[in-house]
């Protein structure tokens, strides 16, 4: 990040700008702040904001007991890992083909890939549901992930990055007798590390949070991810218990929030380098 050391525009009203930026920031944080407030206070304070309200962890315990969260966490973890691994491998291979090989039909193939940026599997829910039924995969974790294994976004990002690798590097490797796959693994992949991190974060947060397709294709505890589990559990009770819901919300979002906190800088920088502007 380039620190801006001087302000070339003279004295402007920085205080007012900082204030407005923070008002907007607080507005944006409001749902999270509310969730934190409600989750750590007894139910009677869910809608009553008082500084003297006692703190409690009971909502988390209740939420944890109210639904099979360990199972949901495991499912989501398996889902996200599976999708990420598949996307990385498939996108790397495809991007390499597009970036370094000249072959007939490569433009057409690339167009077919880019089409998925417009038509995501989320939109073709009816047909994809039928396909999963035919394959006998309905209500499995694999069926939630399968439509997303080939990611046009990943292929596109990596292709752009691979194209910036100097030809000399891979010609040198070819002279040394390295195969195409060896060159890919030893030259291209290491150089694209920041892109892999950026893409990984986007992919993880997308699929951790994905809801509609998993809702459709799963119907048992064994395959349901966190998002669907959370919905099932918050709509079963008659009368919504805000304390338990907010505690559950915090539990399900905590891993992603932490990951973003840790990788924030790298994340923004990777986007810069990826040149998607």
């Amino acid at each position, binding site marked *: 990040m380039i620190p801006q050391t001087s302000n070339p525009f003279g004295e402007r009203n920085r205080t007012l700008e900082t204030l407005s930026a923070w008002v907007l920031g607080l507005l944006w944080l409001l749902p999270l702040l509310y969730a934190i407030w409600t989750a750590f206070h007894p139910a009677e304070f869910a809608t009553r904001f008082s500084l003297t309200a006692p703190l409690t962890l009971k909502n988390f315990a209740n939420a944890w007991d109210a639904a099979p969260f360990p199972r949901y966490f495991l499912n989501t973890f398996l889902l996200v890992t599976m999708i990420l691994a598949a996307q990385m491998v498939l996108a790397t291979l495809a991007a390499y083909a597009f970036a370094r090989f000249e072959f007939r039909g490569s433009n057409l193939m690339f167009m077919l*890939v880019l089409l998925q*940026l*417009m038509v995501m599997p989320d939109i073709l829910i009816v047909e994809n549901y039928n396909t999963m039924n035919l394959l006998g995969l309905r209500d499995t974790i694999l069926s939630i992930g399968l439509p997303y294994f080939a990611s046009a976004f990943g292929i596109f990002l990596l292709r752009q990055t691979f194209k910036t690798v100097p030809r000399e590097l891979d010609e040198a490797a070819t002279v040394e007798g390295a195969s195409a796959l060896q060159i890919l693994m030893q030259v291209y992949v290491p150089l694209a590390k920041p892109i892999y991190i950026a893409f990984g974060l986007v992919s993880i947060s997308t699929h951790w949070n994905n809801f509609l397709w998993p809702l459709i294709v799963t119907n048992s505890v064994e395959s349901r991810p966190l*998002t669907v589990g959370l919905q099932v559990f918050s709509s079963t009770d008659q009368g919504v218990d805000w304390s338990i819901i907010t505690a559950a*919300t915090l539990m399900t979002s905590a891993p992603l929030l932490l990951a973003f906190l840790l990788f924030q800088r790298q994340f*923004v920088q990777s*986007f810069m380098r990826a040149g998607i502007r």
Partner: protein
Amino acid sequence: MNRTHSSITPWLLLLPAMTLLVAFTHYPAVATFWHSFFSTPKGANPAVFVGLENYALMADDPVFWRAFTNNLWFALGTIPVSIALAILMALWVNDRLMGRGLLRLAYFTPTVLPMIAVANIWLFFYTPQYGLLEQLTGALGLPSHNWLGNPNTVLGAMMVVAIWKEAGFFMIFYLAALQQISPVLAEAAGLEGASRWQYFRMVQFPLLMPTTLFVLINALINSFRLVDHIVVMTKGGPDNASSLLLYYIYEVGFAFWDSSYAAALTVVLLAMLGVIAFVKFRILDRRTHYQ
């Protein structure tokens, strides 16, 4: 590269990804089109060719028209606001404001939080009698209002949630773009006596145009895809006032199990995306070729 292998190698590299892309994107898109001309198989009755019957049905279906126009309003209402906010946020967190890191996090949290989880919280904000919004309007002495229960306000309320969700995500792209603008330009503009606003209008904003086009396309696609909050908060109600195309497809396909009508509806959605794709590839990409 080895000449004898170079013709087959790229195809082998592409094979796994292309197979899955065809299976879950291209094939279902074509199959949807095909199935929209057939009836829905029910029990012992197999699907029969019905020609344009599903489309005729759609033309007379007030719920479809409602969802369709809702979706247009939804796009029109959410996209400009979230893009404008994203630019503003990016300018702020690119600047040396107090607590910049925290602000970045604040703007970005909606992107990381699962929509389905925060939709529950927004549900509470909009709840009549004791919801947060009610408490605020109550304190100001304004009359009580059921935001999600009133057909006139429900779509607006859903747009607010979508804007809140998207602006921070788009901010990341603007932030990345802003950081690639050389600080020399700001200094030069400062020396020329330009104001901050003039610098933004004459230098930063034009340089951000490619980002804006990229974000605009994404925002358009998202406005037809984003329905999680509808499922949780309103189920398209009241009286279909907050139904969007994809939500209606979901309802028809998985609540009414009318798969052929859902296919016809999906064709309309695909056509909308096709228009966006056409504009993108034919007009916008003339300037930025992916080479």
